[in-house]
Structure formats: structure tokens, C-alpha cells
């Protein structure tokens, strides 16, 4: 169970699915590191290219213009593809120039370039490298997570403010608990929500878009079950709540035996080893990417030095040494859609409004386990290259908080929930804008792809509303 007793997980890898997310305006972008990856073209065609998982019901090129639109709206910085090609073809340059990486990341990149066949690239980030959209340039407070203290990093709140200024209406503290359909069960006619005092309200509309992230979206569809749809809304396939995925992580912290790095000067996540995002081996094991996390390690160093038994001047010397030599690596390892990895409604736990909590059964796909093993091997090699000591491996597998797949996209209504336009197969005016529609989870952070899909939904809506 997550620390706030909300999400219940079970199964062989229950601990690997304890996702942390925020149920509030702006969602978990209040607490992210701004990583704004586009997926690779191959991520959309995993089945065709590598015989694994599924294909999406759209191709990279379908999403490319919306990726760019999302990058402009969020304010994404990234490298010039002519200098550093991240593998996702671009029609336009990034809205902002790439963020210059820290001294620590520069040294890491130098090591990787000189001593391994791999490379370190600039991570695309929704972070200002110049004043942008009324928000200032990043000053490197190193506090992206939990939150950017100066607004240099994008969060979803900014888009809500812009939307409201443009005329959108926002109802705070409204928890949707029911989706109503017409008698033919073809169209959604209204949603019902509770206010904090459990007063019920009904909202009608022509079109409905659910954008409640992976876990809450599936939960809402399931909780709306009634006589008309006993398995939940949009669930004639039975796939709502199934195919739960994430980027499972491997993490190690160690003390480099080389020169001082002083990680933690600048933003948190700026650089990535991207050699394992794609390759023929994806027929056998999942892809992954590696972050050398640029995290202030002074507190870690102090805890470590005190636990070793140092006091006084010796302790201070150790703090300086350890804080300047600590290296932390972690990975995002690709999962596969497995219908058995499933979200259901809790039979035992309800929230204050009487709505069931979500339960998730999770077993890591062997594909992901093999990927994680490969990552561990790579990390061990890197620790050796850096003459590392004091290895601290985070036990087991840990969630990267990128839940996805619970209303999976596909061309066949029998085994998927939405089509290539994120429209539910069952209800022609119901769309889902969420990572829940992902057919595969790739390796890059999911946020930019969620935003691009949402913008593609709005494009569809605009066309249909204008024609109507």
C-alpha cells in the first residue's frame, strides 16, 4: 500500500507498483523533474518491429505536430537535432535551447564517451533556459522535485490558468463518480460529481474527455458500472483496468573514487545515456534509459558519514568528500502490456465520499526483469569505471510513477478501449486523454506524450464541433 493508504497493490511485485500521484488541478506535474521526452517511432510499433507487446493505433508521424505544440505550450528546451539527434524526428527546433549541463554531468559524459561505446545526451526538459511564458529562467535551485521554487519549470497549473483565461470553466473540489449514457448506450450524456459535502451535481455536454491519469481514469470507468454496463463504461472489451504498465527502476548510489563532482548544482535531471532506448534486442528484453541524477547529496553524505562513526573535524572532512563524490544512477525500464496486471475496485476500502479505492495486481513481465538485469550489469561496469565504493542498491524494483495502459489503445474494439484518436470504441463522444491509452510505455518520461495525445484530441474535437 502507498504511504497514504490509498493505492493497494498485490501480486509478486506489489512493491513495484506503488505509484505516487496527485489528485488535484495540475496533477503530478507539481512534483516532477520536467523531463519532456518524445517517444521513438519504434515505441509505437513494438509488435511489428520486435514481436513484443502491441502496436499503437497511430504512428509517430501522426503525433509529431502535436508533440511540437505541446513543447511550445509547456516550454521545452532541448538539443539541436543536427548536433545531438535523440531519435525522434523533428519538423521544428525545440522552443528553447538545450540546458547546459553541470560540471558533474560534463565529467560523467566525458567518462562515458571515452571509456564506453555509449553516449550521454541532453535531456529535453520543460524548463526555461530563457524567460518564457511569463516565467523566469532556471537558476538551478536543485529542487525540481518536490517543486520548482521559482516557476522556471512547467506545471499543469499554468495550462489551466491559460485555459480559464480563454474561457474554460473549472470546478474545484469536484470528484466525478458516475458517467451517464443515453438509452442506446452509444453516447455519454452527463457526468455526476460530488462536492466535498457529498452534494451531487450533474454536468451535461456534447463531448466528454476524461483526463484523470491512468489509475483514476480506469477507476472512474469501473466505478460507473450500472445495469446498462455491468463491467463499467467503455468496457465491452473487458480491458479497462488491464495492461497496467510503468517504467520500473533500478537505482544505485555509490562513492566515486575519481575527482570531485559536487552533484546537485543545477536542475535535477539533465542528462541521459540513451543507447538502450532501442535496438534489435527489444525482441528479447525491454529498453531502458539511464539518468545520472544531478541531486544535491549533502544530506546523504552527512547521514552516511555519521553512520560510519565520524565526529568533529573528521566528520566535516567526510561530509565534503562524500557530498562531492556521490553518484546516483537510475533507470526507466520498459514494461509490456499484460492483461493480468490489472486494476480493480477495492472491496474493502472506500474514501470519504464512499468511492472505492483502487487495487492493482502487479507481476513484472519477464521482459522487464531481463531489462533490469541488463541495467544492473551496466551499473556495475560504471561503478568499476569510476572506482566506486559504498554501493547502496535500492532493494528490489521500484516504481517510477509513470502508470499507463489501463484503457489501452488499439484498432480492434475486442481487445482495446480507445482508437487511434483516443476515442472510446464504445461511446462516440467519449475521449480519454491520459497515459492510460498507451499501448506500450517506451522509456522516456510519459508527460509530453500525454500532452501531445490530449492536444490531438482537442484537434479532433475542434474539427467535429466546427463541422457540426
Amino acid at each position, binding site marked *: 500500500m502507498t504511504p497514504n493508504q490509498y493505492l493497494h497493490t498485490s501480486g509478486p511485485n506489489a512493491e513495484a507498483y506503488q505509484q505516487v500521484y496527485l489528485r488535484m488541478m495540475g496533477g503530478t506535474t507539481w512534483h516532477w523533474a520536467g523531463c519532456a521526452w518524445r517517444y521513438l517511432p519504434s515505441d509505437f510499433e513494438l509488435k511489428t518491429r520486435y514481436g513484443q507487446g502491441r502496436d499503437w493505433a497511430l504512428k509517430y508521424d501522426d503525433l509529431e505536430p502535436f508533440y511540437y505544440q505541446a513543447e511550445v505550450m509547456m516550454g521545452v528546451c532541448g538539443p539541436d537535432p543536427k548536433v545531438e539527434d535523440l531519435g525522434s524526428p523533428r519538423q521544428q527546433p525545440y522552443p528553447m535551447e538545450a540546458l547546459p549541463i553541470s560540471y558533474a554531468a560534463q565529467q560523467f559524459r566525458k567518462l562515458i564517451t571515452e571509456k564506453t561505446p555509449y553516449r550521454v545526451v541532453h535531456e529535453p526538459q520543460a524548463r526555461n533556459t*530563457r*524567460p518564457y*511564458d*511569463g*516565467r*523566469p*529562467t532556471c*537558476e538551478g*535551485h536543485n*529542487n525540481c522535485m518536490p517543486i520548482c*521554487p*521559482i*516557476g522556471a519549470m512547467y506545471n499543469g497549473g*499554468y495550462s489551466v*490558468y491559460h485555459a480559464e483565461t480563454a474561457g474554460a470553466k473549472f470546478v474545484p473540489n469536484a470528484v466525478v463518480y458516475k458517467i451517464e449514457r443515453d438509452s442506446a448506450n452509444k453516447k455519454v450524456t452527463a457526468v455526476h460529481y460530488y462536492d466535498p459535502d457529498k452534494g451531487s451535481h450533474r454536468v451535461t455536454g456534447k463531448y466528454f474527455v476524461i483526463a484523470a491519469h491512468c489509475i483514476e481514469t480506469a477507476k472512474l470507468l469501473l466505478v460507473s458500472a450500472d445495469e446498462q454496463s455491468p463491467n463499467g463504461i467503455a468496457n465491452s472489451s473487458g480491458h479497462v483496468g488491464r495492461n497496467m504498465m510503468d517504467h520500473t527502476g533500478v537505482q544505485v548510489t555509490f562513492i566515486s573514487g575519481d575527482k570531485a563532482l559536487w552533484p546537485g548544482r543545477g536542475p535535477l535531471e539533465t542528462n541521459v545515456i540513451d543507447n538502450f532506448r532501442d535496438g534489435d534486442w527489444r525482441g528479447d528484453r525491454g529498453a531502458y534509459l539511464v539518468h545520472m541524477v544531478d541531486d544535491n547529496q549533502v544530506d546523504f553524505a552527512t547521514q552516511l558519514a555519521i553512520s560510519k562513526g565520524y565526529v568533529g573535524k573528521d566528520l566535516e572532512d567526510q561530509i565534503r568528500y562524500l557530498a562531492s563524490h556521490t553518484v546516483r544512477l537510475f533507470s526507466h525500464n520498459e514494461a509490456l502490456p499484460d492483461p493480468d496486471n490489472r486494476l480493480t475496485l477495492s472491496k474493502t476500502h472506500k474514501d470519504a465520499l464512499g468511492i472505492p479505492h483502487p487495487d492493482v495486481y502487479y507481476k513484472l513481465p519477464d521482459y522487464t526483469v531481463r531489462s533490469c538485469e541488463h541495467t544492473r550489469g551496466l551499473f556495475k561496469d560504471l561503478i568499476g569505471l569510476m572506482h566506486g565504493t559504498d554501493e547502496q542498491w535500492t532493494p528490489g524494483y521500484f516504481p517510477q510513477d509513470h502508470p499507463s495502459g489501463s484503457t489501452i489503445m488499439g484498432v480492434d474494439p475486442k481487445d482495446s478501449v480507445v482508437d487511434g484518436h483516443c476515442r472510446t470504441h464504445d461511446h462516440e463522444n467519449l475521449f480519454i486523454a491520459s497515459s492510460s491509452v498507451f499501448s506500450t510505455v517506451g522509456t522516456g518520461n510519459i508527460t509530453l506524450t500525454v500532452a501531445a495525445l490530449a492536444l490531438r484530441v482537442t484537434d479532433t474535437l475542434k474539427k467535429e464541433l466546427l463541422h457540426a
Partner: protein
Amino acid sequence: MPDFKTVFWSFLVGGTVLAGLSSFAARAADVDQDVMNRGAYLATAADCIACHTKPGGIPFAGGLKIATPMGDIISTNITPDADHGIGKYSEHDFEQALRKGKRRDGANLYPVMPYVSYAALTDQDVHALYVWFMNGVKPVAQTPPATQLSFPSNIRLTLSGWNMLAGTETQETGDSASYDKMRRGRYLAIALEHCGTCHTPRNVMLMEKSDQYLAGSPLSGWYAPNITPSKTGGIGDWSEDDLVQYLHTGRVKGRSQAAGPMGEAVEHSTSHLTDADLHALAAFVLQVKAIDDASDTQPRDGFGKANDIPDLRSGELTRIDNLSQKSPENLFDANCAACHGQNGAGTVDQYAPSLYKNSVVGAGRPDNLIMTILTGVNRKTADGHASMPAFGSTSDVQRLDDAEVASLVNYVSKTFGSGTYTVTADQVTKVRKDHTPH
């Protein structure tokens, strides 16, 4: 330092102006390039773009709303478009507008246009400005909304009387490039940069008080401070180099930084002046008559020190929906300390400046501190892009209400500045309403 410091007439202007220029270089092929360069430099030094361009607008196409006690005056299109701008102006028409405040049709310009200052321009420089405006500026076919004032200010004839009463600068002669340092400095301060337009207090008729030159004046919510060499009320403790650095970059560590209208003046005008001109201008300003100040009785940049208080925590957790009003310490901690430091020292490189030894905080008037918090800082020069987010009504970073701004201003002033005033929420309400986007 940039090489333009060594080239006297070399010409550098901001991107927008430059863009306008390059597209018209061909048309200006038959025009004397030295005259063009001189005109461009003079237009930059006179900061015409500041008033004749609306935010985000096309350079010199007008449309900026300028608040005056008479009402809002909207600047006009001064591009060489024949129908919408000044394309039909002869050099004589141009000279009359510039130095006499007379429009081509004979009507009087509102004295927001600093023609009483431009009256000091030499004939040679008026000519260069005319040549550049006609050949170096892209014509723009758009007319900004007309100024609508109420009676009697709407009667432009009234201004004839004003013009008779107002003291006008005497026209300078000869080649202004050949002046000695002090004469050149005076020419820059008066005829071009028109410092007095903002920094000299005005009488009830809104005329600059000539005996109070540069003694400080309110300006659209800001306060253009006393910059006479008074040791207590002005900038008598500044060196010529300090002032040159300020005008060139907009900031001097331990003294002050430019925001608001002065930030724009630095960005668009003074940061592009040659080193020799900046020294001449600074030397002139530092020798005008020292005038003491009613509010500032100690140097504004002399106050305060780092706040040496440990950040003791209560250990009690606070819910995000805790509705109680935050203490000034908490407001400072949540909104200011991330960049300026809890101790107020700013960053080591002073990208975020120290709050003590800072004229804005040390001033005896709260105007500039309030406006900085409400509207932020956005000043781009070769020195870098100074960017403090606004905390006002349209901020996309954080919006503070009037009581919070008042609380912060008082806390910052008492902790790092003079602490001589107490701002009320009502004062902030008025400033916000009158002078900031909301």
C-alpha cells in the same frame, strides 16, 4: 568588454530596431551611411522607441498608453508611412515637432513628448535623425487609437499657453560629436536622454521645476529617484564608474539595479551608448546642483546587513489548505528567499541581488519596492537577462494579494532597508489598480 566601447560612432541597437534597419538598408543605399549611423545612434540615445512602441508592438508604430495626470495619452506612429506615420513630414515639419512640439498640421503635441528637451538638439543632429527615420525605419501602415482627454486638456490650443510658460532648452550648436566631455554629457543628459523628463519634479502645471533638476519625481507608480549628487538624498556616494556601469548594465553591486521604466531606458538606450558617452553623461549628472531629499536622509544604498537568524522550524506540519494568514517571515521565506536568500544576501554572482545595500530597499519611499514586487524585473542587456517574476495580478508564477505585498514590503524594508515607512494594503490596492495589469 564589448568592442563598441572603443569605437565612438559605432552603432548597436536592440534586435527590434536592427531588424527594422536591415530590411531598409537597400532603400537607403543612396543615403550617406555616416549620417544614417549617426541618426540611428541618436534615436537610440533619445530612446524614441520607449514611448513610440507598445508592448510587443512594431518598433516606432506607436500605441503605448502613457498615464498622465491629464489622462492617458497614446503615443503615435512615427514610422515613415505616408498615411499612418510621418512619411509626409518634410525635414522642417520634423524639426518643428521635435524641437517645438508642433504637429505637421499645426496642432500642439502633448508635452509628454519631451520637445522642451529635444529643443537643445543641434541642426546637424536633427538632420541625422530625420534621415534615419525616413530611410532606416520600416513604414508601418497602422494608426494607434487616438488620445481621448477630457476638457480642458483635450483642447490642444490650451497647450500654446503651456508652451509659453514652460522653460525650453536652448538649442545647441556645432558638431555635438566634437564637444568636450562635460558639454557632451550635458547634451546627452538634456537633449537626448532627457533624464529630467522623469527625474525632475514638476509643478502644478506639470512643468519641470528647473531649480529642482533631477531631484526625483513619481512616475506611473514608480519613483524616479533623486539622482543629484546630494550625499544624503541623491547619488553623491556613487563614482563616475559606478554610474557608467549602471547605465551600461542596469546594475551595480551594493548600490542598485534598474527595473520598470529605467530598466527599459537601460535596455533600449543607455546600454547602447559608447563608453565615452557614458562617462560624459555620468560626469555631467554627478556635477549638477546637489539637492537634499525630504524622504531620503541617508544614502539609499547604505542600509542594512545580512539577516543572521537561524531558520528554526517548529516541527509542526502545516496542511496545504491551512487558511491562516502567513506571517511576514513565512511570506518572505516562501516568495523571496529562494533567490535572494533567507539572509537577503542574494546569489554570490548577484544575479539575484542583495536586498541590503540596495537603493530600492533602502529608499525612504516604498514605490519602487511595491512596483518591483507587483511587476517584476525584465531587463536584457549585453550583461545578461535580469528576470525577476512579477507577483501581481496577472503573474504566471505567483500572485500575492494587497495585504501580502504590504506585509512583505514592510518586512523587507525593516529587515534590510530604512524601515522608515509602513505600507498599508490600501496603498497597494491603489498602486495595483492604477499602475499594473490586473
